[in-house]
C-alpha cells in the first residue's frame, strides 16, 4: 500500500511539475530563441526562414506571435533592429534619427510599432514612410526623425505612452544581394538623440 502511494506521488510529480515546467519554458524559449539564425547588418537583423517551411519550430512560433502572415524571403525580407546603432534599447521617451539611402528592392518601407506589435496611436495618423512618400535630401539620402514632439522633414511620432518600440524595414521583391550578402548592405543608421 505504501509502495503504491509512493508511485502515485511520483506520477503526479511527473505530470504536474514536468508538464507545467515544459509548457512555461516553451513560451520563454520562443521569446528568447525566435531570433536564432538571425542575420545581422549593422543594428538590423533578419531571419531568412521567416514565413517558410524551412523555419525551425522556435522561429515559426516566434513569427506567429510577433509577425503573423509573413512572406518568405523570395517575396519580402523583413529587417528589424533590436537596438539603436550603439546597442541601446529603443524607447519612446528618446528621440532618434534614421539616416540612410534606398535599398535594393522593388519598394521598401520603414514602420514603427509599439511594444504590443501594433501601430503607435498618434494624432497625425502617421506610422511609416515608403520609398514613394519620403522626402529625400539633395544627395539622394533620407533622414527620418522619430520623436514625441513634431520634428522637421520626415517625422514619425512616437506617441504619448512611454514604452519600448520597434521598427520594421520591409523590402518587397528584394534584389539578389539582399539575401546573398546581407551583412554588406548599407542599411540606415539609427542614432539616439536626446532623452526625456
Amino acid at each position, binding site marked *: 500500500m505504501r509502495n503504491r502511494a*509512493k508511485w502515485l506521488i*511520483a506520477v503526479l*510529480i*511527473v*505530470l504536474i*511539475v*514536468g*508538464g507545467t*515546467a*515544459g*509548457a512555461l*519554458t*516553451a*513560451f520563454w*524559449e*520562443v521569446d528568447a530563441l525566435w531570433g536564432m539564425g538571425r542575420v545581422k547588418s549593422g543594428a538590423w537583423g533578419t531571419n531568412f526562414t521567416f*514565413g*517558410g*517551411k524551412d*523555419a525551425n*519550430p*522556435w522561429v*515559426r*512560433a516566434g*513569427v*506567429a*506571435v*510577433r*509577425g*503573423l*502572415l*509573413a*512572406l*518568405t524571403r*523570395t*517575396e519580402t525580407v523583413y529587417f528589424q533592429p533590436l537596438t539603436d546603432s550603439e546597442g541601446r534599447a529603443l524607447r519612446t521617451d528618446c528621440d532618434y534619427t534614421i539616416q540612410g539611402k534606398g535599398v535594393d528592392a*522593388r*519598394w521598401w*518601407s520603414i*514602420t514603427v*510599432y509599439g511594444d504590443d*506589435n*501594433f*501601430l*503607435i*496611436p*498618434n494624432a497625425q*495618423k502617421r*506610422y*511609416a514612410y*515608403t520609398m*514613394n*512618400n519620403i522626402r529625400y535630401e539633395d544627395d539622394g539620402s533620407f533622414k527620418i526623425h522619430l520623436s514625441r514632439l513634431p520634428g522637421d522633414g520626415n517625422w514619425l511620432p512616437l506617441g504619448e505612452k512611454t514604452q519600448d518600440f520597434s521598427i*520594421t524595414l*520591409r523590402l*518587397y*521583391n528584394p534584389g539578389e544581394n539582399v539575401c546573398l550578402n546581407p551583412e554588406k548592405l548599407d542599411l540606415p543608421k539609427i542614432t539616439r538623440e536626446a532623452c526625456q
Partner: protein
Amino acid sequence: MKKWILWTAILTLAFGSIVNVLTVMAIPVVIMNQLLNKSFKDYAWNTMVHSSVVTENSRTVVRPSPDLLYSVCKYDISERPLRITVPVPPTYVSVACYDTNTDNFFHINDREVMNNQIELVLVKKGSSHPDAGSAVVVEAPTSKGLVLVRMFIPSEDKLDDLIKAQKQARCEQ
C-alpha cells in the same frame, strides 16, 4: 528510496521536454486557429473580405503594414477547390497562401503573371487537379487556411482607384 527519487526526476525531465517541444510546435497552429475561428469569425469561408486602410485601430493581426491594402479569404477546400481572382492595378500586388501551421506555402505577385490579373485554383494536396484554364493550380498542404492579398498604396491620390481594384478581388468555389 534514492532510486525512486532518481526515476521521478528523470521522468519529470523527459515528460517536461516532450511537453516543451509539443507546446512550441502547437503555438502557430493555435494562433492560426484563433485567427480563423475567433478574430475572423464573422468572415464567411471561401469569400474574399476587403479591409480598409490600416491605422492604429487595426489590431487583428500583429505588425500590419499601413502601406498596403489587405484582403483576406479563409479557405476550406476539404470538399471543393477554390478559385482566386485578383486584378492587377499598376502597383505591387501579391497573393499569399498560408496553411494552418502559418507557413506561407505559396505566393505570387503582379510581375509573375502575363495578363492583368492573378488567377489561382487552390486544391488539397494529393487531390486531382481540375481543368483550371489559364489559372495556376496550387496544392495546399492543409484543407483550411488563409489567402492574403496585398496591394501597395503608391500614393494617397491613387487610393480610390486602388480600393476599386481591391473590391474586385474574389475567391469562390
